[in-house]
């Protein structure tokens, strides 16, 4: 679909393809969607995983 197409620099796309394979993603699209989701969370004001972890780590029950 026209609306879902995004232009990427070829070198960046190649790197994304390589990393998506190494990291075990089913496709480069899945990897890019995952990376975008993480970035969007920051702008949505959602906590980063690191912040969540830091806050929870004060609990003795988890490490």
């Amino acid at each position, binding site marked *: 679909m026209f609306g879902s197409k995004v232009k990427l620099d070829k070198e960046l796309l190649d790197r994304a393809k390589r990393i998506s394979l190494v*990291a*075990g*993603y*089913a496709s480069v699209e899945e990897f890019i969607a995952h990376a975008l*989701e993480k*970035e969007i*969370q*920051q702008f949505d*004001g*959602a*906590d*980063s*995983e690191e912040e*969540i*972890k*830091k*806050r*929870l*780590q*004060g*609990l*003795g*029950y*988890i*490490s």
Partner: protein
Amino acid sequence: MSHSHRSFSSLVVLWIIFSFAQLFLCCKCLAMEKVLVLGMDGLDPQLLEKFMDEGRLPHFKRLADQGGYTPLGTSIPPQSPVAWSNFITGGNPGTHGIFDFIHRNPANYLPEFSLAQAEPPGKSIRLLGYQFPLGGGGMKLMRDGEAFWTVLEREREDVSVTICRMPANFPPVEMRGNALSGMGTPDLLGGYGSFSYYTTDPPKDYETVSGGKVYVVYPLNNQVKGILHGPQNSFKVAEDRAPIPKTEVEFMVKMDPENPVALIEIQGQEILLEEGGWSDWVQIEFDQIPLLWWDSAHGMVRFYMKSIRPEFSLYVTPIQVDPARPDIPIATPKEYAPQITKAIGPFYTQGLAEDTKALSGEVFDDREFLIQAGIVYEELVRHFEYELSRFEKGLLFFYFGTSDQCAHMLWRAMDEKHPGHIPDLLEYSDALGEIYEDMDAMLAKALEIADDDTVIMIMSDHGFGPFYYGFHLNSWLADEGYLAVKNPYMRGKGEFLSNVDWGKTKAYALGLNSIYINLKGREGHGTVTSLQKEALVEEICEKLLAIQDPRNGEYVISKAYKTEEVYMGPNTIKAPEIIVGYKRGYRASWATSLGSIPEGWFEDNVEAWSADHCMAAEELPGVFLANRPIKLKDPALYDVTVTVLSLFGVKPTGQMIGRNIF
């Protein structure tokens, strides 16, 4: 005198006698309305009975003989936030919606602290690199259901109520009386306690130490410079995609060139400490906008000068919300926290203040942990004495967490079978017994102020058992085909279920006892329809109960609770589908709680955190003692709620499922 006249006179006399009798009974009734409930977290029936039999707990014994003692049914699962919420609401997790220490956001599967969450700030205006909020923000208590003291205050306007350090009550619910929040109250950084440690001799794996931050320092000319990192600067605008900057305060430590003494200089204050010494509470202000006083965050810390030479090591407590000028709502009314501070001095305000993480991270040794836990305990004692001194009638609830946090850490010292036990720890093998003696001393203080009409109750939320082995629940789910791993080569890496292929996953575990079905329409990438759910839950429960530890042949899980069967109430729909009830000795592994998927299913627990209660509810009841005969058989937490209300003549509400214990 006519017959009718005599009858009338007799009626008047009867009426007068009846009125006097009513007045007498009413006075008697009012005189009895002095109810003291002591919450002692994690007080275990087996240990309590052992120490009572040994004659070490004379006041517990007296109470048990005078009134009664019984094990107390706990919550499913027996985790403190869940259990105390059962007591608060007189219901169960279906009522209050607290199922575990850790919940998850079903949209993105990320973990969340179950008890309280930050609310997003409202609009703000920007000026000179700063943003000025125009409202909104703050913390929200996630527990649902009406607290029993709200019901009591509504039904009996004449009863004064004080609720001190009740878990699952941050921010405290509005009330006419006084409340100070307890477990669930964050430190000033917004987390659940993060210490700072400045040292020339960092412990192993210090970069990944949990629950604190280790800073390597380099003394120069007998001086050490350090920075205390404060809360995020809520006024500062983050540039581009950079994280929001944090506030910070510099300090200097000047070491005496000859003697084991050092001077700490911070914000114009000087603190002289000998090696091994603890400072009093030191107030710190974290400025957010230079030259403006009203924007500062108010914290306080204590310094522990662990060693000066040959290695330098300085421990700083997590930054506490200053109770004299609290920036977040730790008390209601808000003047109550400064009022306590004025009476007893500053005190730890975060929930679960015993620094178990400093011991686990080898920043403290066991002796140092006991000293720090002792500081927390002494503050509780002072606060308790203050409340007792002004308690004339009404309801006073007071919570002690020492019995829980110390049991977690000291169990391995008395249990030679524990994988974390080492002979050096035998020195502390009786430390838990001494903690129980401290609890007995608290009961003695309560008995001192009690007259014949005062009702005293002691309750704990759950018992305790050894935590010998961790079980990798997500790994088991993966090996049984319920959870799909995205990259098998990365299986041991990553947290927060980041290596899960959600499109092929049927169930996953997060928290300490919870299994969720990856439900279509609820989870972000759900795969299981609601029609398929019941059979899947049944199948997983059957398999859970059959798991055996190949090393000793023992069954690992004694109960697999289907929440639809054991919970009732409007929040049941939000619950995990299965609560895993581990046998004594087993618990969810460290990796499971935050969603990791290591190889294998079992690991020895060699951590200082050596005992736990996140097991099957039937294995770990709490305790109940009172100076009144106990008539109800097998009482549970929610029965205590109804009992307290009954003592004030208040009927339970529709959400309450308990019965009167007396």
